[in-house]
């Protein structure tokens, strides 16, 4: 499934709802699907808020793939080069001294198995991978 989305928060949530419908149709376990929707929300929000500056005239793409053994989410945007995988690991501690801006990437790492970034044809490409449990 491929989605072309405008650079707005509403479009981020349209992508999230599409993933929820996609995951339910593929019988993805609820816990895994929750984590993936959270990861997609964080990554797409980052694109909209930073790369696209919430400009509805700009667009980004989300592609969902299910192989039976894994699910992958690919995000493509034409913003300036930004590799979120280079963000320091952090410990996610929500103490009052820490700016909470790093929580997003921390949650993405927790809920996915692989996070792969590349720059292709002047576009940021971020792939989120999650292995699925084998059928009983």
């Amino acid at each position, binding site marked *: 499934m491929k989605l072309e989305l405008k650079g707005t928060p509403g479009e981020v949530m349209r992508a999230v709802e599409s993933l929820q419908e996609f995951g339910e149709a593929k019988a993805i376990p609820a816990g895994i699907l929750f984590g993936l929707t959270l990861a997609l*929300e964080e990554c797409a*929000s980052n694109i909209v808020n930073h790369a696209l500056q919430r400009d509805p005239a700009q667009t980004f793409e989300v592609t969902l793939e299910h192989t039976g053994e894994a699910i992958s989410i690919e995000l493509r945007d034409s913003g300036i080069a930004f590799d979120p995988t280079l963000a320091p690991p952090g410990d996610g501690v929500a103490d009052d001294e820490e700016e*909470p801006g790093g929580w997003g990437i921390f949650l993405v790492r927790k809920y996915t198995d692989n996070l792969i970034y590349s720059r292709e044809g002047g576009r940021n490409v971020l792939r989120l991978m999650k292995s699925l449990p084998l059928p009983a």
Partner: protein
Amino acid sequence: MPLDIQIVRTAGSDQTGVYTVKLTGSLDTLTAPDLEKELTPVMARCGKDLMFDLAGLKFISSAGLRVFSMVRKQLKERGGMASFISLQPQITEVFAIIKALPGVGMFTSEAEFDSYIAARQRIVQNGQNGQV
């Protein structure tokens, strides 16, 4: 999924009361600004404590966590606390991942929260009366 926000005063006066914020739906990049806006007048008159009833909250992202963080910080400066009741398992997991549980109150029910508030008010009153 939209976010439904209900704010009710559960104890005390209108100016210094204890308020409960009941959230239903999704607290995300689209809806977090709505919650922040709704909380502004509540934070001005809620005193030291604010309770969030999350029984109906299905989804939360870092945008929503930032709103809770802001509330927690402001209440802590007043000597109070943000409290959360009836979290669904997936929301509890997100709180646990970012280690947001220390420093906030977690209660299983509104009755448990009310008991906590009553006990704290007794301690304050006893202190004012010179009792320990």
